[in-house]
Structures are given as structure tokens and as C-alpha cells.
């Protein structure tokens, strides 16, 4: 599977951006449909569009990187069905996100499990690092945290030419969270330290590298080695902030749930080396693996995370068309 691909994992990752999810006018059709016909109409068109897309081998190859790891025994027809379900899952998240922005927050209900655990960690007054992944719908996850008084800061890199809009952009309102751009001065490191010192929440994605691969360590994930960032754990070590692994998942047409998966306390003074952070990144990877077992079609990964590893599998799914 991945080992035969000469491109680096970084290049493969860059290739997958929201720009690759349809063109601008296609997005506009969905926005119009949402305004006129609501969720049902958008989902109906979505199911047809996704079916068409999944007929394209290039789309199934993108799905295959993850699905072959999650369902190694799947035959060709099952692979096709799984690709459809995964792509449809992503499509529904994008529609839901637009729904909230266009028709209002009442369109989606978010439920936060074990809020007390989160409040207890905040009460330590060292700030809180929320580690998410590309699962479920993080925007909904964040809105479920909206009732908290503590400011929320997101480490987020916006791609140039990104046509995929966030719910607050649909609604024409100011972003309710402070965005820290990792392309800023020193990768936003000082800003991140600053918000944690103020006791605020810092939300980062833990499953994907942003930029420099030097800031990653290799951990086991779904039967192979993947590179995941360790900067959040280093921040935790330096500032004393606890880490909460928090994943969201869709549970119904208009419902999402948000659940703390694991609390990670990184001891202080771990220093400069990257290897000392492997056990903590590994904890995150294990939590994500559990998530993938429970919600296999809500981990939206469409590039080869396992570039350096290999499992026994077809290099590419055979064309069905």
C-alpha cells in the first residue's frame, strides 16, 4: 500500500485539502439547496453526488489508505461500500456545518458528555489543551463548549484558496474563537503559551502534522507507524496544562455528541528531545484507534498517513466501474 508511493507523507497530506472537495460552484448549489429545502434536500443530493464520486477510482484510492487498515478483510464490494459510507459521512458533516451557519445553530444539537471532567481540569487553573482529530465535526464540538466562560483558542491553518467555509462564515458572524495561525511568529508557540498561562482553552488537532515533520514522532496506529505531532505535549510539559482528548461524532440526522476520551498529564521538565513525548502521543493514538473501532466512518482521513509502514493489502482498489 503506502510503501510503493515515492511521494513523502508531507506531500501526500498537502494534496488533501478542502479545495479537493468539489469546486466553488458545486458548494454554492448545496448552499442554495440548504436555504430552499433544508437538510433533507441537501442530504438527498449529497447521496447521489457521493455515489458518483465514489465510482471514480481516484476517490476510492484516497479512502483506501485508511479503510484498508480499518477493514483489512474487506472484499472489493465491501471496499466500495465502505468508501461510499466514509465519503458520505464527510459530506454530511460539511452539509451540517453549512446548515448551522445558514439556518442557525438550532439545526444541530450537540451533547457534551462528562462536562464535569472538563470543568475539573479547568479548575486546575493551568489552562487546558484539548486535542481533537479529524473526526466528527469539530465545529459542532466547539459549539457544545460554547456555554463555558473560558475563552477557546484554536490552532488552525487555513489553506490559501480554501473554498470550504466554516459555519460562522456562512452566518456572517465573527469567529467566536481566537485563531492561532501556526504560520505566525515561531509557529504560534508564544501565543499558545500565552493563552495557557491565562488559564484559557487551547484546541489543537493531534492526528495530523502541520508543516515541519521534525515536530512529529512515529507511533503505532491501526497496524502501522504514523507520524503525529508532539508539540501539544511539549506545551503541556512546559506549562503544566493538562490535556483532554476530546472527539465528536454524529449520532443522528441532527445530533452530535462530544466525549472526553482520555486525560493525559505530561510531567514537567521533559526537555528538548522528541522521544520523551512518544508515550503521550501513543496514548492519543490509542484513543483515536478506539474511536475508529467505535465510529469507523467518522475518521476523515484521505491521505496516506502510513507512508513509512506497510501491510499486506492491495496497492489500490480495483476499478469497479
Amino acid at each position: 500500500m503506502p510503501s510503493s508511493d515515492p511521494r513523502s507523507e508531507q506531500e501526500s497530506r498537502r494534496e488533501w485539502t478542502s479545495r479537493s472537495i468539489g469546486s466553488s460552484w458545486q458548494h454554492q448549489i448545496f448552499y442554495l439547496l440548504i436555504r430552499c429545502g433544508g437538510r433533507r434536500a441537501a442530504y438527498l443530493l449529497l447521496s447521489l453526488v457521493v455515489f458518483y464520486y465514489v465510482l471514480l477510482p481516484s476517490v476510492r484510492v484516497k479512502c483506501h489508505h485508511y479503510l484498508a487498515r480499518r477493514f483489512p478483510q474487506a472484499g472489493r464490494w465491501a471496499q466500495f461500500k465502505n468508501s461510499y459510507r466514509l465519503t458520505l459521512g464527510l459530506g454530511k458533516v460539511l452539509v451540517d456545518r453549512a446548515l448551522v451557519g445558514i439556518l442557525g445553530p438550532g439545526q444541530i444539537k450537540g451533547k457534551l458528555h462528562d462536562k464535569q471532567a472538563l470543568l475539573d481540569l479547568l479548575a486546575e487553573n493551568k489552562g487546558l489543551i484539548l486535542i481533537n482529530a479529524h473526526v466528527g465535526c469539530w465545529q459542532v464540538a466547539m459549539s457544545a463548549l460554547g456555554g463555558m466562560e473560558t475563552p477557546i483558542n484554536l490552532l488552525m491553518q487555513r489553506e490559501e484558496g480554501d473554498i470550504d467555509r466554516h459555519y460562522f462564515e456562512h452566518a456572517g458572524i465573527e469567529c467566536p474563537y481566537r485563531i492561532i495561525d501556526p504560520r505566525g511568529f515561531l509557529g504560534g508557540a508564544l501565543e499558545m503559551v500565552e493563552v495557557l498561562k491565562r488559564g484559557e482553552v487551547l484546541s489543537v488537532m493531534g492526528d495530523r502534522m502541520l508543516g515541519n515533520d521534525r515536530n512529529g514522532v512515529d507511533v503505532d496506529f491501526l497496524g502501522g507507524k504514523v507520524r503525529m505531532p508532539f508539540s501539544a505535549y511539549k506545551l503541556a510539559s512546559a506549562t503544566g496544562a493538562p490535556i483532554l482528548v476530546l472527539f465528536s461524532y454524529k449520532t443522528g440526522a441532527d445530533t452530535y455528541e462530544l466525549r472526553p476520551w482520555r486525560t493525559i498529564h505530561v510531567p514537567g521538565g521533559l526537555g528538548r528531545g522528541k522521544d520523551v513525548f512518544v508515550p503521550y502521543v501513543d496514548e492519543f493514538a490509542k484513543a483515536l484507534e478506539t474511536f475508529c473501532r467505535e465510529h469507523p466512518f467518522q475518521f476523515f482521513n484521505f491521505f496516506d498517513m502510513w507512508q513509512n509502514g506497510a501491510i499486506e493489502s492491495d496497492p489500490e482498489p480495483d476499478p469497479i466501474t
Partner: protein
Amino acid sequence: MSVKEKLKRVLIEDLNLEDVEPDEITDDMALFGDGLGLDSLDAVELVVIVQKHFGVEIKDMEEGRPALQTISTLAKFIEERLA
């Protein structure tokens, strides 16, 4: 020991800068990128080091950006806060 000298010593010790002696670090050497070769994650460690060894807090970007350029700028920042 001057602030600059102490700074060079604690940087080498706490950041485990191998094969670097305090004398080799010039006052105007850039801390990040070319120069001392620190990266963005080292900035996190640097903020902690300054607080731990000098009792000086780099509170925000406004303070941090000009201070975290060279040994000289960082030492000047520390001296001003200690004055």
C-alpha cells in the same frame, strides 16, 4: 556573572545544546533559524527557562517577539524587567 553569560550557560544546559560552548555563542547570534538553530518548540522551552532562572515572565507576543531575537535582545529584556 552578567545576564548574557548566564543566559548562554542556561541555554546550553537546559536546551541540551550539544557541542556548543558559551564562548561560541555571540551576542548578536539569532536564537532561531540560522544562528543558534532553535526551532518554534524551543521557544516554549525558552519562555520557561527565562522564568525559571531569572524570574522574568514573557507574558505575550508583544513582549516576546522583540525579545526573542538574539542573546542581546533577550538579555536586555531580562535586565529591564529586573531593574
